[in-house]
């Protein structure tokens, strides 16, 4: 068992050693949400549905882009540390073990923005260049 763990830790260290490029996405919430920043760890917990409410008590509603989105691919690697197919597998395990359903998927950034604008507890992400209405705001992601 010790050999397995050593091997796996080395493997993970190698995989995790890839340099990160400039962030091409921004995280958005409803403008009425008092939250202005989230740590990367909290953001990951929110997207893994292990943190289901905001600090002010409101329930979190998580929204993802579609599985073929390049922005989702980057978000998944940067925040969750796993690529989209691995996360699909993660959610299938969760779903069929009765532990939780995956985040809602929206096919376009415009629809993600509209969803967040319409749901006070929602959180989503869009590309850095996406146009945002006043009903949606960007929050910063800290280390």
């Amino acid at each position, binding site marked *: *068992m010790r050999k397995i763990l050593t091997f796996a830790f080395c493997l993970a260290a190698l995989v995790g050693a890839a340099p990160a490029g400039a962030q091409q996405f921004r995280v958005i919430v409803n403008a009425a949400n008092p939250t202005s920043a989230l740590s990367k760890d909290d953001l990951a917990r929110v997207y893994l549905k292990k943190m289901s409410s905001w600090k002010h008590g409101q329930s979190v509603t998580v929204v993802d882009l579609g599985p073929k989105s390049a922005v989702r691919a980057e978000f998944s690697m940067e925040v969750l540390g796993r690529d989209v197919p691995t996360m699909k597998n993660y959610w299938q395990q969760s779903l069929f073990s009765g532990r939780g359903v995956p985040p809602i998927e929206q096919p376009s950034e415009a629809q993600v923005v509209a969803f967040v604008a319409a749901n006070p507890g929602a959180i989503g992400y869009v590309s850095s260049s996406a146009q945002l209405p006043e009903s949606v705001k960007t929050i910063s992601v800290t280390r």
Partner: protein
Amino acid sequence: MRSHNVRNLAIAMALSAATAGAQGLTPQNVEMHGFGSWNSGATNNENLYLGGMNRGSSRNANAGFTLTGHMDEKLSFTTQVQFDFTGLTQTSLDYVFAQYDFHDALKLRAGQVKQPFGLYTETIDVGVIRPFLSAPQSVYGPTANIGEAYRGIGFTGNVRMFSGMSLDYDVYGGGLNREEYEPTLDAYRVMQGRRPFSAVSDGVGTEITDQLYGGRVMVNLPFDGMRLGASGYHGNTNEQPIPGRGDVQAVIYSFEYAANRIGFRSEALREWESDHDRQNGWYYEGSYRLFGGWQLAGLFDRASTHLKGKKPGCAAPCSDRPVIGESLLEHKEYAAGLNYYFSPSFAMKASYHYIEGNRFAQPSRDDLVAQLQAAYTSGATTSPLPKYTNAVLLGAQFSF
């Protein structure tokens, strides 16, 4: 768990319908998902393995549906119904339970709930999420190590730890049905003089376990996709009305790393039944995603079983460890697989398996009994069973 009739399906549907009707569930807060699997297999001798047989077989297929209804932010109901098309179609109610979320760290579950035991028990029927068509037999084979679902009450949750780690836990109590198909152990006991050949079982049996309590802890390590943990349970099969007899307990240690192209899992199991046997199983299972949807997979799987000695007073040819039956207790397997994922939800899988021992690769029950009986009565000193088996499996698995 198989009910052999559609009563459970009717109950599940009725529960779902009643829940929806009485409490106001709408299509917007009900989700339906499903899964399916089919596989064909062939072996190079008379031994059967994972549905493969000497002249080939395409009998193995199953499908299931999961319904989850969210009453509100705290309360949800989940039901899963499964159909097994191997032979006569059988329907089973895998689980139906209610969950109330007090907090992310404390959720109450009650009903017939998936047993949190090891990495694969909760999703044992959903093949598309693992690299091989079947889960490793040493732990998840038909030996009553796992129960699939407990009937009772449990608590689950996730607790944040330090350094980016978190802990998923489950504790539960109630009852459990454990399925087993054990003609090999029965045959071995015949060799020990503990029972007649006519008592060698045919078909899947259910071991009802009560006075159950158990739990699981999984620590999510700072490396994304890596977790380590242990699960265990204790119960009583009530097979023996003597205090201390009929106790069963099992513990399993699990490790998983699943991130991006690499998947690696290893588990080690020990299961005790106080009145007769002890089973050990462990495996390494790895996978690597190549270009496109191609995936390579490898497995080393090992199981051994220890039974108590011959019946007291039993004369020769009874033996504590009958030579002609030794292979019935052993399983060692090497397997390699090649999969193609059209998407994460649909895969075609092919695998080659080399198996030593007859614990899980054995002839049909009648052939097994006939061969062992002939060897036993003639005083043979070597096993008549083919100890080495090559098997090839091909199948498709999906979910939605």
